[in-house]
């Protein structure tokens, strides 16, 4: 079949053809970018923190009438309160291990420091989030130690929340180690987390995300430093690893046990937002709620857009079929088979959709460039465009099928009517 008659017919419907082409082009541009955004958000939602989050939960509590932590004696008092809490938690039947820690990934409460390679370095080499805890930090969080050793109980010190840290030894993440020492020989090297106090790297963990999931932390999301120091404040955070399958029981028992050991505290329990006992599954869902919302919204937009465009093609083609009943009848009377008529409309749609997707592919890339500039988004892989092109061509063929089938059923007798 030659394309000439189709092109000639299309010329008579310039406005309609232009509109449907533009609609297909815009749909392609938006759907590609929306799917790309969905993919990026899903990657973010699923990225591992480096912790083994199963069976892990977090308790946040505040002591009532506790010392302020302004002087050494009151820091010691806070420290003994914290240590007795950790002991209480470790003794529970459903608990495997427990630690006090200043913050955790996904909760956006962060202590950052510039990291230098020389004392009193003016511009720090990189920045990192500090995690303060004891020698149980690595096993409780489920971090993977890939080089060196863990802290031992004798390494661990304590200080007030607003004290100046001077850690002689630290453990860093591999990401930070590789950034500071690109040759891969970070173990045993000295870094400066506190401007002028040397800290020796005694171990490297595979991965540990910084507390903040906000975009300002994106460039250093894996730069974490573990410091063998308990931080003493008038509040504390405990990360507890429950025995396998005992998470719910441990989450119920832990606050009760803490209250029983010392009632002078506030732990809000319950399932609402005010609760301060949360599993890491809940914390993860909460941390990435905006991303999930955005992904769902984009998904809904894509589906609706494809439906609208499909329906538009069905509507327009139906009208064209209705308009051309007589011509179809004449063609049929002159010997065209049903299949020829079906083909005609399918080819016509392929031409229109083809022009639409070519324009749409250009628009999609342009839109991506604009989003990169306006919203600091990444470059979209052309695979998205390619899949989008195939989907839209398929959509066009699917949408045109029903009206084209109706056209092919036009009887040759129509040619003789109403002449």
């Amino acid at each position: 079949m030659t394309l000439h008659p189709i092109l000639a017919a299309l010329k008579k419907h310039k406005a309609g053809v232009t509109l449907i082409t533009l609609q297909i082009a815009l749909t392609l541009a938006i759907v590609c970018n929306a799917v790309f955004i969905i993919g990026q958000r899903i990657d973010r939602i699923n990225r591992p923190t480096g912790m083994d989050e199963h069976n892990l939960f977090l308790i946040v509590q505040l002591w009532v009438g506790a010392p302020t932590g302004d002087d050494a004696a009151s820091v010691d008092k806070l420290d003994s309160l914290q240590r007795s809490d950790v002991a209480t938690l470790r003794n529970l039947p459903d608990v495997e291990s427990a630690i006090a820690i200043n913050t955790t990934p996904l909760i956006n409460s962060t202590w950052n420091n510039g990291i230098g390679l020389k004392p009193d370095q003016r511009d720090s080499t990189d920045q990192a989030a500090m995690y303060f805890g004891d020698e149980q930090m690595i096993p409780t969080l489920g971090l993977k130690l890939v080089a060196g050793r863990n802290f031992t109980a004798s390494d661990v010190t304590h200080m007030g929340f607003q004290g100046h840290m001077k850690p002689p030894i630290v453990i860093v993440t591999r990401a930070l180690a590789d950034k500071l020492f690109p040759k891969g020989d970070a173990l045993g090297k000295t870094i400066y987390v506190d401007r002028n106090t040397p800290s020796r790297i005694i171990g490297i963990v595979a991965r540990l995300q910084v507390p903040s999931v906000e975009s300002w932390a994106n460039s250093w999301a894996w730069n974490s430093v573990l410091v063998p120091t308990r931080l003493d404040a008038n509040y504390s955070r405990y990360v507890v690893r429950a025995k396998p399958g005992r998470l719910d029981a441990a989450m119920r028992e832990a606050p009760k046990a803490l209250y029983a050991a010392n009632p002078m505290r506030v732990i809000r329990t319950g399932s609402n937002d005010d609760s301060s006992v949360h599993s890491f599954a809940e914390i993860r869902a909460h941390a990435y709620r905006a991303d999930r919302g955005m992904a769902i919204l984009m998904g809904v937009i894509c589906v609706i857009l494809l439906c609208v465009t499909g329906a538009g093609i069905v509507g327009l083609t139906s009208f064209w079929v209705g308009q051309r009943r007589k011509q179809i009848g004449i063609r049929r009377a002159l010997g065209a088979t049903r299949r020829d008529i079906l083909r005609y409309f399918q080819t016509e749609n392929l031409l229109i959709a083809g022009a639409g997707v070519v324009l749409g592919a250009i628009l999609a890339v342009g839109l991506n460039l604009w989003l990169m500039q306006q919203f600091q988004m990444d470059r979209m892989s052309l695979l998205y465009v390619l899949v989008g092109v195939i989907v839209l061509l398929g959509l066009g063929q699917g949408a045109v099928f029903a009206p084209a089938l109706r056209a092919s059923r036009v009887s040759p007798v129509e040619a003789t009517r109403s002449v």
Partner: protein
Amino acid sequence: MFAYYLDLALRSLKRNKLLTVLMVLAIAIGIGASMTTLTVMHILSGDPLPGKSAHIFYPQVDPTPADWYNPRHPLEVMDDRSALDLWGAHRADRQALIVQSPVKVSAPGADRPPLMLTMLSTTSDFFPMFEVPFEYGAPWTPSEETGHARVAVISSDLNDKLFGGKNSVGKMLRLKDSDVRIVGVLKPWRPTPLFYDAEGGFTGNGYDTSYYAKPEDVFMPFQSALEVNDGNFFQMTCWGNGPSVPGHLQGSPCLWVGLWVELDSPAKVAGYRAFLKHYAEQQKTLGRFANADTRMLDLMRWLDHQQVIPKDVRLQTWLAFAFLAICLFNTVGLLLAKFLRRAGEIGVRRALGASRRAVFAQCLTEAGLIGFIGGVGGWLLTMVGLWLVRRQQTPYSDLVHMDAPMFFVTFVLAVAVSLLAGALPALRASRIAPALQLKTL
């Protein structure tokens, strides 16, 4: 005539129900999506002080040392000495210092655990300058301020929590370790965005939604608050060795205080700019500043500069309008097909004496009717969309609602969109040559 066109339009819409439903749905969905995002934008980008924001300014100087890495000077806040110098000069009609800090609050005798709340240390002009409404009592007086009086103003939320919403003026409140007398209780007050705290979110780069949080619960005179809550101030941006006592920032090399001024005439604005510049130059000569950069934006420009509208919301708005454009193309295409299909009928009308204008008006009436029905559907979908936004846990969720102007905009947009969609098809239909059509009948 219009009634007749309306009747014709209704008949035409009834003739092809599927197509009508398709067009109405396309417009309804497009309107629903764009009005949902537009309503959120409208609420987030609103003027927090309508009629007054043009007179409110945020002066900035740059006290950071020369060897200090600072890509964005002047920074959002300044050190206390510069802030107190500028404030103490009283060159503006009104002026308020701003510092936030977390504070432990309890009501003496109340049988409940203490609360950790945010306190705003400010100066007495804050309340009249930002039109803060009082339920009971009044702001503290300037003499209480200079006398370092232990007084506070509390939010209506806190008053409900601690005193059951009763008049608590004169009652005592325990802040950290000090007893403080309540002199005022605010009415529920929710400036959107929380404009005066905009200096706190400098790390957000447009991805921060904290500008839509609630105001502080406790307000105290600047100096009294620094004494009462000493040691609890955030040392976010410091150089050198930082403060000698942690959390005690007076006189320290840290940036932590914001200053707002009200300037009621353009002459005063120019005067204040000159004063600010002069101050920075003077401090540079004294060797205290390394650089004499200053900046003073009015409230709305400052919010814009701080990118308070979350980027996700802006992205969604763009997408929603692209979406509306697609729905528009869809409707134009379908209307075009529909009107041209009726070429014969239109030809007869033209031959019987209908003018082009009459045919155009008739087609446009039909398009407008589709738009109106689509608008009703779009409004319903917008309500669903806003309900979904409210269910998301964002700081601004509780603010999102449709107000009268947005309700009006919904229908104007829907009818405008469908008239726009109908214009081209109607124009084409009105150009149909009657003779040609009659011949084929």
